[in-house]
């Protein structure tokens, strides 16, 4: 459970800098900055907890746990490029050839595959 105290784990000044760096950022109220600061804490807390719970057995939160969780949650789609699931080169090649084979099968009419 995130703490509700009026204390910040992330300096609001840094929050403001990041917010202002976005394109055509408007003026930002103090209250908005505080809310973003708190929301970000909650976000980190949530991502950490849920990924850890979902992870395989073990006491260490690993990158793969995060990638798995991000992949499964609809509202974390914006993170798919940030925390992508990794695959080995072998897996990639298998996937690539599988796609090729499938598209060959659907376009060929009477010819059998060799």
């Amino acid at each position, binding site marked *: 459970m995130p703490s*509700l105290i009026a204390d910040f784990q992330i300096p609001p000044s840094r929050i403001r800098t990041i917010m202002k760096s976005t394109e055509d950022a408007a003026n930002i109220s103090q209250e*908005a900055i505080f*809310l973003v600061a708190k929301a*970000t804490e*909650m976000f*980190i807390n949530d991502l950490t907890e849920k990924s*850890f719970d979902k992870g395989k057995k073990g006491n260490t*939160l690993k990158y793969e746990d*995060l990638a798995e969780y991000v992949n499964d949650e609809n*509202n974390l789609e914006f993170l798919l490029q940030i925390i992508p699931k990794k695959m080995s080169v072998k897996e990639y090649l298998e996937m690539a050839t599988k796609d090729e084979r499938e598209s060959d099968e659907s376009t060929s009419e009477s010819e059998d595959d060799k």
Partner: protein
Amino acid sequence: MVEKIEDLNIPIANVARIIKDSLPSNASVSKEARQAIARAASVFIIFLTSTSTAIARNGNHKTISGQNILDALEQMEFEGFLDPLKEFMKINKEHMKEKKAAKINTLANNSATEPAAEEAIPEESNATAAE
């Protein structure tokens, strides 16, 4: 004004502390995971900012308000955050009020030397006027 690239990220120490508080005491986190979470948090802020900027604009406001942030979170499907944040908003408002009141009190006390003299002799404002 050019910002250093570090300024566009949340200090990793702060991220590490929040992560630590979110895990059981005997758990650990890999460096790679910690860095990924830090990146994700920065992206979250940016996404939240652009969503709330759009909402503020639609309402013809030039300043992003607290309510814009809440509406943005709802749009981003983070409804679970709304209630705790509304609670935080309340606590924060009261906190600010108390701080303000305390400040005014301090100021009033500090500049009290002259007013105190005037208070002691309220009727004689003309007689004690300096020339």
